[in-house]
């Protein structure tokens, strides 16, 4: 309930923006840019929703007292780990739901997509996107344990860019960008596990680091 009340407006706002972007691509008919647009927007959405430390996120129109309400949150009879785990799970469910809805619209509205991909490959692409999004999501979750928005969002964005650039220059086998290009399920008909590994491993490491911070920090 708390997570939903804090994130609903940014979630709905970004979802509407995403739909408008899809509609504009639709009018341009070719539909080639639609996946790039959706990928970019969903990344932004994941970062935006990821600020789910013990601190509350400030919903639209509310700023005063949001940070101060942490004292109330930590006085509740639940462990910090549970507080954090429930909150990150709620945000990931939201991210996954929006990704799913976006995928449905892309599949339904763009005949070009149906022409180049089978339903199975498209499902693999959606799964690839969701697994990739765990990295930006957990990056913001980590930074929000010791920094307030909007700085935590900026740090998460920089971390993601660093990760993408680093993996791009290492070897094509771990190049995350290739997971949506040459190594995409639409090309290879399988999940790009090696290209997704840096995202998933980063997400796990960042989440564990966030748990470490949350359990020790004196709010």
């Amino acid at each position, binding site marked *: *309930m*708390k997570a939903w*009340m*804090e994130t609903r407006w940014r979630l709905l706002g970004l979802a509407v923006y995403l739909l408008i972007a899809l509609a504009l691509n639709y009018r341009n008919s070719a539909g080639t840019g639609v996946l790039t647009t959706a990928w970019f927007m969903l990344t932004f959405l994941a970062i935006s929703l990821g600020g789910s430390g013990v601190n*509350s996120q400030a*919903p639209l*129109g*509310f700023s*005063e*007292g*949001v*940070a*101060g*309400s942490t*004292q*109330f949150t*930590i*006085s*509740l*009879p*639940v*462990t*910090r780990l*549970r507080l954090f785990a429930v909150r990150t799970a709620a945000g990931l469910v939201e991210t996954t739901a929006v990704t799913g809805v976006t995928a449905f619209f892309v599949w339904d509205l763009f005949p070009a997509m149906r022409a180049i991909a089978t339903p199975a490959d498209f499902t693999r692409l959606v799964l690839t996107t969701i697994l990739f999004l765990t990295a930006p999501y957990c990056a913001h979750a980590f930074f929000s344990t010791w920094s307030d928005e909007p700085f935590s969002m900026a740090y998460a964005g920089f971390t993601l860019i660093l990760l993408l650039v680093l993996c791009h220059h290492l070897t094509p086998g771990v190049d995350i960008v290739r997971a949506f290009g040459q190594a995409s399920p639409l090309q290879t008909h399988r999940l790009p596990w090696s290209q997704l590994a840096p995202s998933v491993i980063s997400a796990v490491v960042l989440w564990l680091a966030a748990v470490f911070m949350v*359990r*020790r*920090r*004196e*709010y």
Partner: protein
Amino acid sequence: MNDFIIETAGVRRSFGSHVAVDGLDLQVSQGSIFGFLGRNGAGKTTTIRLLLGFLKSGGGEVRVFNEVVTGPEGNAGLRRRIGYVSENKYLYPYMTVQQIIRFTRPFFPKWRSDLELRYMDMFHLPPNRRISALSKGMRTTLMLLLAMSHGAELLILDEPIEGLDAAVIETLLKELVALPATEGTTIFFSSHQLAEVEQIADRVAIIDHGRKVVEGALDDLKVQYQRLRVVFDREPASISWLPGADHVRQEGRTVSILASRNVEGIVEQARSLPGASVERFPVGLKEIFLEHVRGN
């Protein structure tokens, strides 16, 4: 095992080079109303945050319900037994009164809907108004409702009457006084409102610079402490008063003494001085407080 709900032994806590709590010993018995007093920055809120485990102590031991408070990582079960009102009185501003109650209720299996309704009515809280639109006094009463409705065995209240109007304070104090008898609740509260503390506390502690300077049953303190006014027929030379003369102030021919013990001996000493007449006055909590924190 003992019957102390709160027990601290030599607790210390620093923030950088600033020592906020310095070897604090406290014992709070079950069913008591314990007033915790001190100036701004004396260490009251830090102590309360140590009791709740929000902060890790830098030495000594904190026990609540006989359980060692370990710091941020632990004691979640302990907090189920504690009702807490924070100093800043901030709740989630985007929720309404009814929503925050609905959010908080499931955390506490012993939630008392009868008390919830009683306090909603008592404090005139509008159920559908957003917390961001509540006055500070209303936010305080809402926090009190949340703390007092979940069947807490211990209430830890940090400045609970700050921002409340006189009528609400009166109602609240009556309610707090009744809680130990009706529900067996122990109340530990900090406040700057000494008159209100004096009205309801049965035991008080005063801290200054993180150290306890006075602790005792309020009635005992009032008996123990006396103000002596010694008037001389001419300005006296420096006098070495007997032990127990805690605070001595001289203004011309008049010497004012706050005595915490050995009062009879000090009176005898004063009477034995040439040209001196002695008067004794009872003292209130405010005077005890001011004498102990003034000039430190």
